[in-house]
């Protein structure tokens, strides 16, 4: 087919989606100016008072802003890392299983916690880590005195990271399971003829096979570096662990309780976006430099 006709086809295919993006993503972006205003609904976007960088200054001048940012990044980073490792490992493990019914059942079960809200799961998590819960029962059989996990600044963040991974790993592994089916079975046949054992096949065929998807999923999760998971923390924290568990989103929520803080929320959103953009650009650069792939 003629080169330029092909281009035309491609443009035409992009068109409807771009129109939709333009209307529902680009047009509303005029709202970003709210970050530089003291937005009051009755005045609207065009008449609210300009405050320049005040909203941003506020974010960095509240007494505990450093602590809040640190908490957010640690928890978010932990979730990002486990959010890749556990689903990938699980998908690889499941891939080793040949019993189809078992495999399907397991897949369906582990994907379910994703659909339970944190309001519901919080009760379960709280029980597991309470004085009379299974963890402390286990510890006491080793003669370790009970630990109040959910009230401890040492334990709170690891528990948040672990429980989030527990809730999401099944759902997260779906994409890798899909990717695993895309690996050419011929490769395995060739490898077993060469006498490669299971481990070797994993290292040389399976993992390289899904590596592109792992890379893309990792990159796409980078903008979440400032999203530590509001619903979970909000339902599980208490004033004793503010020190280790108060994150940007819970803080903004509490500010918003007094008055809807659209401007502050927009300012925070803008910070998150800018940082996300920087991270994605960097990751893309790294990937293109060290491999022959392009991600975007």
């Amino acid at each position: 087919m003629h080169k330029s006709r092909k281009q035309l086809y491609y443009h035409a295919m992009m068109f409807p989606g771009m129109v939709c993006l333009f209307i529902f993503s680009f047009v509303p972006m005029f709202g970003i100016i709210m970050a530089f205003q003291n937005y009051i609904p009755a005045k609207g976007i065009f008449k609210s008072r300009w405050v320049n960088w005040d909203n941003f200054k506020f974010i960095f001048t509240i007494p505990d802003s450093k602590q809040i940012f640190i908490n957010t990044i640690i928890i978010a980073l932990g979730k990002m890392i486990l959010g890749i490792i556990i689903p990938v490992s699980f998908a690889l493990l499941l891939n080793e299983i040949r019993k189809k019914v078992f495999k399907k059942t397991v897949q369906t079960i582990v994907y379910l916690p994703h659909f339970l809200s944190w309001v519901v799961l919080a009760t379960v998590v709280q029980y597991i880590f309470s004085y009379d819960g299974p963890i402390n029962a286990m510890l006491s059989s080793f003669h370790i005195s009970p630990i109040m996990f959910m009230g401890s600044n040492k334990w709170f963040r690891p528990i948040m990271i672990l429980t989030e991974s527990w809730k999401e790993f099944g759902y997260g592994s779906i994409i890798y399971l899909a990717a695993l089916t895309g690996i050419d079975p011929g490769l395995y046949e060739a490898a077993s003829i060469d006498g490669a054992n299971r481990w070797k096949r994993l290292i040389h065929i399976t993992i390289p096979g899904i590596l592109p998807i792992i890379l893309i999923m990792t990159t796409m999760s980078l903008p979440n570096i400032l999203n530590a998971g509001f619903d979970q923390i909000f339902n599980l924290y208490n004033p004793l662990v503010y020190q280790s568990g108060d994150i940007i989103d819970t803080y903004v929520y509490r500010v918003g309780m007094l008055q809807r803080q659209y401007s502050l929320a927009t300012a925070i959103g803008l910070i998150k976006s800018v940082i996300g953009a920087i991270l994605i650009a960097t990751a893309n650069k790294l990937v293109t430099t060290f491999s022959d792939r392009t991600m975007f």
Partner: protein
Amino acid sequence: MKRNIFKKFIVITTTICLTVSLFTGCSNKKDDTKDVAGKNSVSESKSKDPWELARTTPYEPYPEEVQYTIGMQVNASVAYPKGSSDNAENNGYTRLYKNKLNIQNKNAFEAVDGDDYNQKVSMAITTGKIPDIMSVDYKTLKELIENDMIEDLTDSYKNCASDLMKKIYASNDNKSLKMATFDKKLYAIPVTSISAGQEMLWLRGDWMDKLNLKEPKTIEDIEHILQEFVTKDPGNNGAGKTIGLALNPDIYYGGYAQAYQANNIFTYFGACPKQWIEKDNKAVYGSVQPEMKQGLQVLSDWYKKGLIDPQVAIRKYDDITALVSSGQCGALFCGWWAPYALESSYTLNNNVDWRAYIVPAGSDGKVTMFAGNPNQMYKVVRKGYKHPEVLVKAVNISLDYNQGTSSYTDTSDIAKEYLDYVNHAYGVDPIGGFDYYNAASLAYEHISEAIDGKRDPKDMIMYENTLYQSCKKYLDAVKKGKKADSTDWLNYNARMVSSKLMHDTPVNIIQPVFFDQTPSMPLMWSTLEKMEKETMLKILTNEKSVDYFDTFVDKWMKAGGEQITKEVNDALK
């Protein structure tokens, strides 16, 4: 099969698109207000213009139907009587309003009370299209006034407010109206709060009997009882499984007779946590006053002695309710309405016998409580709406049937249907009313008089009558030696036992002086609040000593507390 994915897809999409456009076609927006009434308002000109009459009197109906759009608060699952085709704009409530005043609502939006509703309100404000009538919070009320978006209701109230409405406002010294008045103009019909009454200590009487404990009077008595409960395990929970006093870790003081707080321990020493109170002619914030320390000392000692749940810090509200319901906890502070929270414990255990005590009394023999915000919400009318008095007149009707006696005197079908709606909690009243400040005490008076045969059960408001029936059922069951239904147990204990205690026990009341927000509050307050919650919980759980309180006050002042205190005082000038 593979090559057709794309085609199949298009077919499905188109089919669905068609189906849905049919489906949504009927639900499309139709929110243009047809103000039929307005056009004709000049035409009639007899001796007394009926439009003028409707505009200036409480009960006169409009000569033609007047429509109003409304932002409606719904609170739970909305149900209508079985088999009826009623909906939010045509139901037992709206028909009564239509019948009495010839007014008809059109719902601009509906949302669940609270955050969701406020969200809708603020979106409506943003787009500049607010409904003719809606409820807003104080903050929004001020914003709407400032931007000239709502009607001045001074005249409407003057002309159309019924005596009953005025009487209800008077039950709290017209504080409600004062809060809605700016520059001598009334901008809203405030929805009043009911007084929560004194905080009471609720104890398991069956446990007290078992352990031969006498009723508590002082802090030492309370401590002794908690000690006995925890160590002697009267509920057979197993050693170490019974917890003492239930406290809500998120905030264990400052509410208005809310469950699982301990305000009485603080007010005993003269502290008024979380309230802006007057002290030496200046407004101060109660939580940072030195009187707090004694209360904190008592509670942190109790924690040390194991008289407060060792895991208090990680409990959520529902967890505490679970402890109380399952019989692991036999002591809590709560207002007269505690039986609502205790119903499950009765369902699970016939022998449960909760007793309430208003303790510990101060040297004058009375417990001190602080009063709450006089208002919950403010009903406002859009600027430019032709019949602002519709709101006042409609509220009149609601009050007459709920707080007045119209529900007995009016025997029309419409009224009967309205009663049916109220009693079954069908649908949602688009307008709704509010209640006397001392509604709970009044209810006790009326119900107890009726039980004693001194009052005609029809000489009380409808809701009280329902409660009266339930209390009687409870007494009948007890007489017959049967287990009373849990709802009847609840109503009897709440209305006849604890309400009686509230009604009969004199109390010192401190009036907080400030319920508003100052300019610095929106951004600073959450930091201060966080600091307060964190410190107080750490002191309670002995993670910090009581003396740390002074450091906290210092930090609090520097982090903006001082400035906000100054602003509050300026605002009160």
